[in-house]
């Protein structure tokens, strides 16, 4: 019996710690893979310490956790006393019922409902952006409160009224009676409430996801945006540090507890108080030390050179930038950290946030939930934003570097007169396959329907890109407004279901290099990133045609810092900056200063800059009726 118990418990601990072990092991990997361990290295620990974005996120998380937990504790304690003293049973029941809601409700619903409230209020007050650091703070306090109340209230019940009454009979005022009699007795409840609130706030992702505003990223949100693409071990390194810190803290608490338990018989209450006091002060101290000891910027030689070209007249102001995830050079592996370089050069503080689809960005802007000064949408979305008067004209006299933009990328359909956008990055879809797993010549999308590769084919998990493949196969226009065209394309997609392994987006970054699938459509530049870790991968532009897209820098009509936005756009076109970005993103650059630069490692790359003409089509903005129609078809494809 005993050994059986030991075996069961050991197995469960293995289960609980296996992923954490994986995380710790791969945080020491010298390559960026989280699948293949190359050799031991501490490089990722350096990377995360050097990354301002990560450090800021850690600081924000700690700040938010401490502030929201403190407010919730004070507020919740007062509320508990109020609730406890309520005479009416129904009132008590009603308040407790409402208090329980945030605990019982799924996080998704709590997050969504709070977001709707904030957006509603924001619209009512006419705010430019209704979500901010205050909304996320309110949300955290709201979901922390019930935990504080449910820790304090039982303690109040334990104390009961007799002590207070006795104290008052002996001449204490109500407040004195509270401080001298009640407080010492409910102390431990308050503290465990605080700790619980602190922990919950620290770890919350779902509610923060819906309620955070411009430029206040917490660690869970950052991790979410990072795990969208392939996770780099820097996040593992950071998590390992957190793990060790928590482990040490818990061991400390445990040993203090054990010690005090021995002495418990002599001085019971004061000892217990001491422990809890130690725990809380240790938590707060660690938070404060981590907050202040974390190095801030110590950067950057590069900006000296550019300093003469940029004024610091806007120093101290803030610029809010909204970009795709992993779409700017971030300083990893001794590359240029573009955001920091810009801050250093101009003195402007940048809030940098990520989105993961044009539609998400559009809906956030449209609802007034957030406001940004610079955004980087794709072509068809620019057309839509322009049509809906959501973009502001750019002042090209303040963007002298616009001269570097290749003529090919000027006067494009979505901005025929070059008024609203400056091209940032150019991409094409194409077919990636593993030459070890796929035999013969591949030059057509049709291989994605080949039953030979059953269970090894991946495809896009977004409607437009997935449909486009079927549309190319059928020789249709990808911007067709004919229902019959979309219907036929949907039919073709349904036929594909039986050979598919999965519909994915960023998961290809791990699946294809890891030999977990044989065929996947994706974006040309991303293939180069995958090829770095698996040389058996091949890329082809299928003969039926591919989609080409241009992501461009734009300024929304409600931008607050227009001048700084112009400066930022110009800065992004600086040859060194554009080069760093092009190297990092791996997509084709529209910047001639990059394309013709001999230091550009991808100069003349056959895939990014093919000499042979590729049959290609842009997506256009599609009217809402057709869009709704094909989205409905898409759901059918998914469910079939």
């Amino acid at each position: 019996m005993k050994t059986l118990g030991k075996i069961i418990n050991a197995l469960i601990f293995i289960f609980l710690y296996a992923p954490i072990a994986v995380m710790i092991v791969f945080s020491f990997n010298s390559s960026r893979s989280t699948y293949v361990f190359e050799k031991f290295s501490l490089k990722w620990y350096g990377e995360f310490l050097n990354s301002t974005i990560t450090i800021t996120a850690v600081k924000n998380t700690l700040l938010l956790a401490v502030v929201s937990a403190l407010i919730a504790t004070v507020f919740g304690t007062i509320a508990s006393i109020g609730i406890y003293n309520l005479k009416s049973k129904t009132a008590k029941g009603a308040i407790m019922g409402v208090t329980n809601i945030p605990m019982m409700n799924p996080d998704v619903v709590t997050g969504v409902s709070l977001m709707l409230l904030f957006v509603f209020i924001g619209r009512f007050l006419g705010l430019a952006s209704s979500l901010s650091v205050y909304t996320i703070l309110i949300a955290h306090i709201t979901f922390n409160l019930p935990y504080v109340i449910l820790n304090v209230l039982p303690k109040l019940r334990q104390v009961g009224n007799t002590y207070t009454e006795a104290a008052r009979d002996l001449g204490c005022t109500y407040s004195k009676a509270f401080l001298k009699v009640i407080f010492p007795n409910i102390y431990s409840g308050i503290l465990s409430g605080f700790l619980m609130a602190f922990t919950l706030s620290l770890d919350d992702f779902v509610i923060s996801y819906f309620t955070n505003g411009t430029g206040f990223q917490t660690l869970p949100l950052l991790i979410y945006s990072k795990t969208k693409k392939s996770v780099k071990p820097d996040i593992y390194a950071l998590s390992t540090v957190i793990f060790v810190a928590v482990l040490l803290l818990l061991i400390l608490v445990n040993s203090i507890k054990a010690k005090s338990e021995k002495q418990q018989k002599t001085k019971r209450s004061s000892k217990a108080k001491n422990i809890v006091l130690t725990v809380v002060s240790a938590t707060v101290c660690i938070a404060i030390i981590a907050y202040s000891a974390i190095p801030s910027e110590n950067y950057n030689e590069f900006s000296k050179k550019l300093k003469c070209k940029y004024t610091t007249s806007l120093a101290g102001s803030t610029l809010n930038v909204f970009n795709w995830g992993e779409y700017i050079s971030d300083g990893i592996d001794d590359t240029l950290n573009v955001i920091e370089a810009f801050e250093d050069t101009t003195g402007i503080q940048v809030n940098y946030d990520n989105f993961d689809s044009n539609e998400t960005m559009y809906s956030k802007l449209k609802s007034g939930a957030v406001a940004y000064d610079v955004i980087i949408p794709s072509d068809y979305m620019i057309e839509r934003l322009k049509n809906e008067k959501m973009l502001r004209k750019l002042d090209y006299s303040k963007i002298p570097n616009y001269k570097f933009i290749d003529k090919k990328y000027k006067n494009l359909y979505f901005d025929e007169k070059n008024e609203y956008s400056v091209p940032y990055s150019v991409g094409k879809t194409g077919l990636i396959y593993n030459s070890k797993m796929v035999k013969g010549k591949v030059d057509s999308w049709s291989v994605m329907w080949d039953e030979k590769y059953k269970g090894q084919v991946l495809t896009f998990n977004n409607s437009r890109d997935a449909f486009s493949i079927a549309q190319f196969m059928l020789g249709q226009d990808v911007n067709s407004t004919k229902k019959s065209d979309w219907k036929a394309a949907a039919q073709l997609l349904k036929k594909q279901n039986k050979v598919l392994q999965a519909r994915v987006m960023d998961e290809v970054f791990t699946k294809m290099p890891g030999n977990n699938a044989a065929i996947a459509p994706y974006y040309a530049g991303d293939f180069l990133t995958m090829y770095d870790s698996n040389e058996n991968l091949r890329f082809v532009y299928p003969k039926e045609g591919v989609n080409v897209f241009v992501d461009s820098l734009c300024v929304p009509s409600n931008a607050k810092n227009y001048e700084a936005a112009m400066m930022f756009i110009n800065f992004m076109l600086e040859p060194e900056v554009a080069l760093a970005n092009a190297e990092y993103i791996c997509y084709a650059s529209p910047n001639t200063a990059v394309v013709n630069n001999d230091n550009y490692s991808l100069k003349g790359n056959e895939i990014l800059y093919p000499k042979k003409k590729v049959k290609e089509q842009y997506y256009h903005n599609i009217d809402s009726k057709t869009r709704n129609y094909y989205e409905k078809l898409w759901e059918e494809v998914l469910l079939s």
Partner: protein
Amino acid sequence: MKKSFLSKLINAPYILWSAIFIVVPLIIVAYFTFTNKNGSFSLENIYEIPDYTGIFLRSIIYALVATAITLVVSYPFAYFMSRTKVRTQSMMIMLVMLPMWMNLLIRTYSWTTILEKTGLINSFFGLFGLGPYNLIGTSGAVIVGMVYNYLPYMILPIYTSMSKIDKSYIEAAKDLGSSSFDSLKRVILPLTLPGIISGITMVFVPSVSTFYIADKLGSTKTLMIGDVIQKKFDIDVYSGIGASLSLVLMVIILICIVFMNRFSDSEDGGIIV
């Protein structure tokens, strides 16, 4: 007199706060459920709900399976844990809680390394010439992810009620001639029922509404309702269908909680460990 005035004064801010940030948001969700894009009353979002029946059922089934597995695994674990030395017990409790301090996203993501076609498990089987098995992208992977993330929520309440049991009860049962299986069934199990009930609630509620886990470890065929709601609001902040799905999810959970509460008569509900 003074006291009742004071207690009213003390209660006012909290009542106001919960009204604005708990009750009103839910009313807004209901508002979006029953209006169309132009803001007039409409049932169009309600009519769309049946399209998602499959996803709702799938979420409930996954959550039930995950809850059942956590229960079956946690019970013996808590039982054996409660019979070790006190020092070991507090050590083990600490080890159970420790993973909860790590970010859920990271913990879930690490599972991809373990479950992928070329991941740790398949490499292990590969040594014996077996596999590779399709582990990732299956409903099994999603359930493993849920069991993993919510296991401590089951272990802790069961352990708490287990450790409260007076040892003399078990001894008494033995003295009266019951086998250890009998004493488990007749003494321990009934006494730990409140812990089991609160464990089930604490695992089922987050499991049924989870998002991210199914997204990372599953495929489009294992999508859960939480993911659908997230995606609806991602592409449209004023998503009527998203609001109506949230409302349905809330009702499901409410029913589940009311149902579970019928089994437990403890006043505190045992939500807090």
